[in-house]
């Protein structure tokens, strides 16, 4: 999982899906997710998957990245399905297809919508501590990832993490230990900054979205139609 790369795709992409309003994409994604999960037969699941691929293809050349991300839940679903493959291959197949569709919906949403916009929507239904931690965790990740990369580079320049897997894992443990110590100092700095800025129980989001355009209505209509068709196939 490369959060940096995902952020890059979401922030700098120029596709029709990037132009759509975040809340519209979230609503359309939720509807397509419901359609993916509601499919009960392999054919219905395949139809939902095809509809999701159509939706995702609006992100043009980013589609392959979203598909690659969607293969991760397929691996886990495959693991669950493995024990059923002989007793009920159809259900195993349905489960795997459903997980692909659901994964592709999430991957498409997050590669075409900046995290901040998605978090802004999530934070409306979350307690302040959770939503604030979500925002700050995302920000902290990018600070810490740079530090980790520097440390790993230093380890490589000094001859690598070790020959055996045991040595390598111990080295990784020590590298992470250094990052954790630095993160404790970073936490203290963040605390002081929050006090100075007058943090009062919640980080306020000042995000305002323009009114929906035809593309936004089209996305919602498409997602609703797919859900309706999948429900009809049940």
């Amino acid at each position, binding site marked *: 999982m490369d959060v940096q790369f995902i952020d890059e795709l979401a922030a700098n992409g120029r596709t029709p899906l990037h132009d759509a309003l975040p809340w519209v994409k979230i609503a359309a994604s939720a509807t397509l997710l419901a359609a993916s999960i509601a499919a009960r037969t392999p054919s219905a699941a395949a139809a939902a998957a095809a509809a999701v691929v159509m939706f995702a293809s609006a992100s043009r050349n980013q589609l392959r990245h979203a598909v690659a991300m969607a293969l991760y839940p397929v691996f886990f679903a495959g693991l669950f399905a493995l024990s059923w493959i002989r*007793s009920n291959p159809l*259900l195993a197949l349905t489960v795997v297809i459903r997980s692909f569709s659901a994964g592709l919906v999430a991957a498409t949403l997050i590669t075409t919508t900046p995290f901040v916009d998605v978090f802004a929507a999530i934070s409306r239904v979350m307690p302040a501590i959770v939503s604030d931690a979500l*925002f700050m*965790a995302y920000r902290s990740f990018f600070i810490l990832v740079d530090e980790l990369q520097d440390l790993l580079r230093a380890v490589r320049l000094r001859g690598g993490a070790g020959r055996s897997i045991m040595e390598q*894992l*111990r080295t990784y443990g*020590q590298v992470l230990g250094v990052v954790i110590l630095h993160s404790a100092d970073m936490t203290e700095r963040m605390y002081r900054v929050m*006090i100075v800025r007058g943090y009062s129980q919640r980080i306020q989001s000042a995000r305002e979205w323009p009114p929906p355009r035809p593309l936004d209505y089209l996305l919602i209509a498409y997602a609703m139609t797919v859900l309706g068709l999948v429900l009809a196939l049940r």
Partner: protein
Amino acid sequence: MSHLHIPDGLIPLPWILAGIGLTVLLVCVALRALSMRDRARVVPRIATLSALMLLAMGLPIPVLGYHLNLTVLTGMIAGPAEGFIAALVVNLILALTAHGGITVVGLNALIGGLEVCLGWLLWRSCRRVFRRPFAAAAIATVVALLISTTAMLGIVAGTRINPDLALHRHSHAELAEHTEPADDHEHAELEEPADHEHAPGSDVGSLKAFAAIVYSAGAVGWAVEALVVGSIAEFITKSRPDMLDPGSGRRV
């Protein structure tokens, strides 16, 4: 892997809602436990620990297809209240990046939260028994991950997502009504797992096969996680022993 992310499309709706409900309840308990603390201190700590968990997942581990989680270490450092919220934050971000399902965020957070709580509890116990922090942390990690994996298997068993049950019900019904039951399975609609009648024999057989896969693949992951967490605990104990002090009064 040491930790299974339950994907979307696998768990029936009542279990999804139960997972979300229980997670909301536990978040309320955690928030109540944290209500007396300075929020400006709590939020950055949860955020940093969440970021560290995400960071560890991206570390290139030399065992195929495996990534670290650091949920147990989070419990050791932050305690159950902050740790549980950190686990929820990580699962929310993971769900959005297709690492674990969106609808099963509640269940995945419960499993992650269980690892956090067990990590906190076992670290406190093991630290009294073992002199070396490496051993205490490694044992706490293996036991916590073993229990959380078993809990995940419990969820799978509880949701009765075993298709054998559906097959048996269909075949009995078809045998009673038709004379050519053999190929009708393919035309039968696949019912939601939760709707299936219970057939204990086949259920146990299929779950055993699944458990064998999960435990055998998981054991390698637990060993990797234990080695890394043990190394981190040893390193931190030498440099900043207060961070992992099991007797610290601030943890809830």
